[in-house]
């Protein structure tokens, strides 16, 4: 058999391999956020098992240091706390007081770590950040309960996933201010409530 014939005979098999490779690649990339065993939510849950939540429902994370970090690539100058939500058990109500001077932010994440909403101290109204996370039905119920004309202080967010977490970040300008930043995180309150 001539080499050219051999090549032609080989082509469909190579094509099949390439097509399968493409399918496997696409499926594995799309599945990774769902099945990755050490995604952000799983890491935070592992910390919760060890130290539990504060009496205000916040997981207070240690200052990032060698061998002592809940999540990778977190800033050692930022005090960090986390709250979990599970919409099957109710909406998450998060309230954090902002003292105004330094950066303070709350971000909402899916289990994979993807952000879907964030509020920082500049957008906080009345010295506090108030967020309610729920699904479309729960948020609708809340809106139905609203009193006409009353000022709405909380930020209502429809979550793209049933479970997830909120990260509370307080920036400490100097190492001596880190304890104060941690106290600010610890003063936040998270509760699971029925709308």
């Amino acid at each position, binding site marked *: *058999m001539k080499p050219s014939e*051999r090549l032609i*005979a*080989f082509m469909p*098999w*190579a094509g*099949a*391999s*390439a*097509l*399968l*490779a493409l*399918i*496997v*690649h696409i499926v*594995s*990339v*799309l599945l*990774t*956020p*769902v099945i*990755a065993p*050490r*995604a*952000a939510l*799983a890491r935070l849950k592992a910390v919760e098992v060890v130290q539990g939540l504060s009496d205000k429902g916040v997981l207070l994370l240690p200052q*990032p*240091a*060698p*061998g002592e*970090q809940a*999540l*990778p*690539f*977190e*800033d*050692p*100058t930022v005090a960090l706390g986390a709250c979990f939500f599970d919409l099957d058990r109710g909406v998450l109500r998060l309230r954090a007081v902002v003292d105004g001077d*330094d*950066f303070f*932010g709350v*971000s909402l*994440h899916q289990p*994979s*770590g*993807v*952000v*879907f*909403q*964030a509020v*920082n101290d*500049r*957008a906080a109204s009345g010295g506090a950040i108030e967020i309610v996370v729920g699904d479309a039905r729960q948020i609708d119920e809340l809106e139905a309960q609203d009193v006409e004309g009353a000022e709405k202080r909380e930020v209502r967010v429809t979550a793209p996933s049933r479970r997830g*977490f909120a*990260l509370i*970040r307080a*920036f400490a*300008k*100097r*190492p001596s201010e880190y304890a104060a930043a941690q106290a600010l995180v610890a003063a936040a309150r998270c509760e699971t409530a029925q709308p």
Partner: protein
Amino acid sequence: MTRVIAWRRLGSVARLRDPFDRYLRAAAAMLAGLLLGFLLTVATLRGGYGFGEYVAGPWSAWPQLGDADTDPYARAALAQRGVAPLARSEGLAFVAQTDSSGAALDGGCEYLLSGPVPPTRFWSLALSDAAGAPLANATQRYAFTSSEILRREGGAFEIAISREARAGNWLSPGEARGFVIVLRLYDVGFDAAERIGAERFPRIVKLGCS
């Protein structure tokens, strides 16, 4: 020996009438496809966070990580590394894996980081390993912030990165061989879509190696 024969059979079209050869070929094509697909996934997830990388000199960031509509590669890379990124309204993290000449950062070398920082309300500059963990060192200092850093008249500053103690602003990579530098900007004062250039970012210059 049998393997060689099987391989030769695989390459032979004349033998294709033999059903066993077809099975062998189909199995080989499937295995190759599976392997190639997984290798492609591993390679793309190692490289970064998908599309839209913002490069400025040695610094790179992925601004779309702060949005809800990230691409599938970014989602997969985040989940696989366990990272929870800063939202866009919070800030933007830049990582340098090399110095300004493009050479990989080496724990045995001394570097001087100087120059401007893009407009932002606060920033912090930290050393970490490639997986995002702070580096163990004797000083137990892992980062500097924009507020605490010692500045010269006019506001310019420099940070020495070295295993040996240095006067002024000094960060130590400890005994780590390789490391990365993370510059986090909080309340960013520019639009990431503007892609301001490398001249607005700190330079990282290698001074020498021990």
